[in-house]
């Protein structure tokens, strides 16, 4: 089957450096001395720990229960003893801690009872649930729970199911090796996804710098008589970005700010995710290990199959880093980050560890002013104007950054890569995005506080009115009672004709409603008086010049607005 390929705008061609690590086969990493398994490894809810310190766990045993629909379970990567469930550093650029289950392996690697389910009897919802319980999440980068993408949108029929095997980031070869060595399981995993989403076509996109992987995948597809097309896409970073790959393979453009591609009739899974899904469905194994590329400033770069929770520095030792290694990059050199703490564990989304050294990644030249050369705009795959975004982000004019579509930025780093002024553009954009989020949170909090305050005022007001009504009613009842007594007394006295008391009675026995109104008016007047007093300038002596100026400014604005007397404004303020 011949697929017509499309182009996406921009993109860059960094040196790929993939041959460093793709020559050797995948090696099983030895059991580490300790496993630190973070509970929060995917987008969505934080799984709840279901084990306690001192407990013995088996390989594949559930240790974190998925919390809510958008969440995925976490399992013990090997058998051993739970040392603690405590806060530990997680592999994140923030260097913050999160709740982890620490396991001391017993060396026996003893599996919990497991086996493949009878998929024929399972409904799509059952399969989703099964994948969630087996901790299957996207292994490409963001870690989106896989079952969340397998629920088809009924409104839009699924046209294409795309398997992302582009692996466009330099240095990384874990998907390449996975395809070369385990193509059969991948294709079976894809078939499961196909059966659930029922797309019109299935396309596996691989960058054309991986001929061995393409051949292996084609062979596996043919062997299983599947109608999947394995398409070699031109090597151009970031062709492996989900939206770029969709564009290349289908011609469809999904805006960067649009979260779900399903609305456009496309769904994308990473090739490693398809493999993990088949390990779960075909073998009953939860996601407890993954292929990690160990490369960079090392003597022997290669890929390992490592247990989730293995400390990064321990794992990297397998590749024998050179002595001048001064840090570890998790992910690729374009979008990865230097881990703040090298003892952080690898997680489900850790595809690559790069030993960092200044020889390999020389320190950046100092930042120069932007000369508006537009190289960044010509490199941006989302066709943004990074130099305009930079200009406004730098000026902290965040409204303008949104006008220039900052939330369409996928932070691929193409702009920073080409910038002759060496401006860390992506950093500026991250800063602007987080500021906007922080402000929105603040605004939301302020709005909520305002609503609460207004409701409190309303409630107090209502209580006051009710109290006044009650009092008035009581007073009226009292008066009516008195009048009735007086009338009774008069009647008892036998004076039938002259009845001054009886005449007076209606006056005393005022209508209760009127009494309430009167009380309310009195209360309002009292409030107004209190407010007047409060609004009165208490002390205009000994003002600082700033205060005096501020007052004068306010006065001036008032005059301009045609409001003459401050007192009237406070009095007419609506309650």
């Amino acid at each position: 089957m011949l697929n017509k390929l499309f182009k996406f705008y921009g993109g860059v061609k960094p040196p790929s450096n993939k041959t460093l690590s793709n020559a050797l086969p995948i090696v099983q990493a030895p059991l580490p001395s300790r496993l630190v398994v973070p509970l929060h490894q995917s987008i969505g809810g934080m799984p709840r720990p279901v084990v306690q310190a001192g407990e013995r766990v088996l390989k594949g045993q559930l240790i974190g229960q998925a919390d809510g629909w958008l969440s995925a379970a976490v399992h013990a990567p090997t058998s051993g003893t739970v040392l603690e469930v405590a806060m530990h550093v997680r592999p994140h650029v923030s260097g913050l801690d999160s709740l982890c289950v620490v396991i001391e392996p017993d060396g026996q690697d003893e599996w919990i009872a497991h086996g493949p389910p009878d998929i024929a009897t399972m409904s799509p919802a059952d399969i989703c649930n099964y994948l969630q319980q087996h901790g299957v999440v996207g292994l490409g980068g963001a870690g989106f729970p896989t079952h969340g993408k397998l629920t088809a949108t009924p409104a839009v029929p699924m046209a294409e199911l795309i398997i992302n095997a582009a692996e466009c980031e330099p240095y990384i070869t874990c998907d390449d090796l996975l395809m070369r060595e385990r193509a059969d399981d991948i294709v079976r995993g894809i078939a499961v996804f196909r059966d659930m989403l029922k797309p019109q076509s299935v396309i596996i996109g691989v960058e054309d710098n991986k001929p061995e992987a393409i051949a292996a995948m084609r062979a596996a597809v043919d062997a299983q008589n599947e109608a999947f097309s394995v398409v070699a896409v031109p090597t151009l970073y970031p062709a492996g970005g989900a939206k770029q790959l969709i564009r290349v393979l289908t011609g469809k453009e999904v805006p960067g700010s649009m979260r779900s591609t399903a609305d456009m009739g496309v769904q994308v899974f990473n090739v490693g995710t398809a493999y993990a899904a088949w390990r779960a469905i075909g073998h009953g194994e939860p996601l407890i290990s993954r292929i990690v590329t160990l490369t960079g400033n090392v003597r022997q770069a290669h890929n390992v199959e490592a247990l989730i929770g293995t400390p990064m520095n321990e794992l990297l030792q397998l590749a024998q880093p050179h002595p001048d290694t001064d840090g570890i990059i998790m992910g690729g050199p374009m979008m990865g980050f230097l881990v703040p703490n090298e003892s952080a564990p690898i997680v489900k989304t850790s595809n690559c560890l790069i030993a960092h050294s200044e020889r390999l990644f020389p320190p950046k030249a100092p930042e120069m002013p932007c000369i508006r050369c537009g190289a960044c705009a010509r490199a941006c795959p989302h066709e943004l104007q990074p130099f305009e975004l930079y200009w406004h982000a730098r000026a902290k004019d965040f409204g303008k950054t949104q006008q220039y579509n900052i939330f369409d930025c996928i932070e691929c780093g193409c702009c920073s890569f080409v910038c002759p002024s060496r401006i860390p553009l992506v950093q500026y954009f991250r800063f602007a995005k987080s500021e906007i989020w922080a402000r929105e949170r603040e605004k939301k909090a302020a709005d909520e506080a305002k609503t609460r305050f207004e409701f409190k005022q309303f409630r107090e007001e209502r209580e006051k009115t009710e109290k006044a009504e009650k009092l008035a009613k009581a007073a009226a009842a009292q008066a009516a009672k008195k009048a009735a007594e007086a009338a009774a007394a008069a009647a008892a006295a036998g004076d039938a004709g002259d009845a001054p008391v009886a005449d007076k009675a209606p006056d005393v026995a005022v209508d209760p409603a009127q009494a309430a109104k009167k009380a309310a008016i009195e209360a309002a007047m009292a409030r107004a008086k209190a407010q007047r007093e409060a609004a009165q300038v208490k002390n205009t002596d000994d003002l600082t010049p700033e205060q005096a100026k501020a007052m004068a400014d306010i006065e001036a604005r008032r005059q301009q607005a045609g409001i003459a007397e401050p007192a009237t404004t406070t009095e007419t303020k609506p309650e």
Partner: protein
Amino acid sequence: MMFAPAPFLLKDASVSQVMTQVCLALIPGIAAYAWLVGPAILVQLVIASLTAVAAEAAMLKLRGKPLAMFLSDGSAIVTAWLIALTFPPLAPWWLVVTGTLFAIVIAKHLYGGLGQNPFNPAMVAFAACIVSFPALMSQWPSVGLQMPLLDQLNVILGLAPRVDALSGATPLDAMKTALKLGEGQIDIAHLLANQDIYGNFAGRGWEWVAAGYLLGGLWLWRRKLVTWHAPVAFLAAMVLVSGALWLYQPASFASPLFHLLSGGTMLGAFFIITDPVSGCTTPRGKLIFGFSAGLLAYIIRVFGGYPDGVAFAVLLMNLSAPLIDQLTQPRIFGMKGRQS
């Protein structure tokens, strides 16, 4: 713990590389200039460069900026060269110095230095000098002037009298003056027959200088330092308007070829309107910028009082660039054909 943001891989690019390549691209034009018009231009290039570097250093020091980093960016040299190439080659040294100082101190650093100038500094220098010293700025060496380099140097340094031979005009200016003086009696064909000044197409020697700029400009385009939009639009505007008037009245209006190869057309098209700082940045914006600049340059040079119109055209368009950019923002990925 060190912190360095991604990406860790960077393309080998820098501001000084950009500026160096612009200077390299000017060399074919400069070579033709020195060979065919006179080596005095080389002296002017040196004077302008030294002045620019000194002014740049002084301003950086005053502004408390790192000297080495900014001096090595090469942007002052580009400005200096453009000034030397647009001023008369035998202009007195102080005129070039004044222009360069004006460009670096006022047009560049008072606006915030590299990347911040709203106007092209070299064009500001040209405009300031032609308004202040119109006579000196209009004195071009007569055609066929045979003068040893030492004598040319003496003229520039004011050690020799500014003889009549110097008070010629550019072919563009000469044609305009001749047409004005001979109102209705002289036609262009007649003028062009005077091969001494007009050369093969557009002025002896100058047409080859323009060809040199064209060559350098095409190289810049190949190197992706400039995009085709602004130069093509600029030259297209020039050809369209001059061609229309030429077809309408060939006796009074010179051919498009004459306009393409004379005056500052080629230098402007590839080296001045492509200045990213003061020009437009969006593709459609560059087209509008280039076309309007070409149109204005033609109108000013043919109907205005100055020998050439490129400088004023560029400055006028510099003023409009921010607005044009704002109105021509391209649709982003996934938003084509959608309501935004």
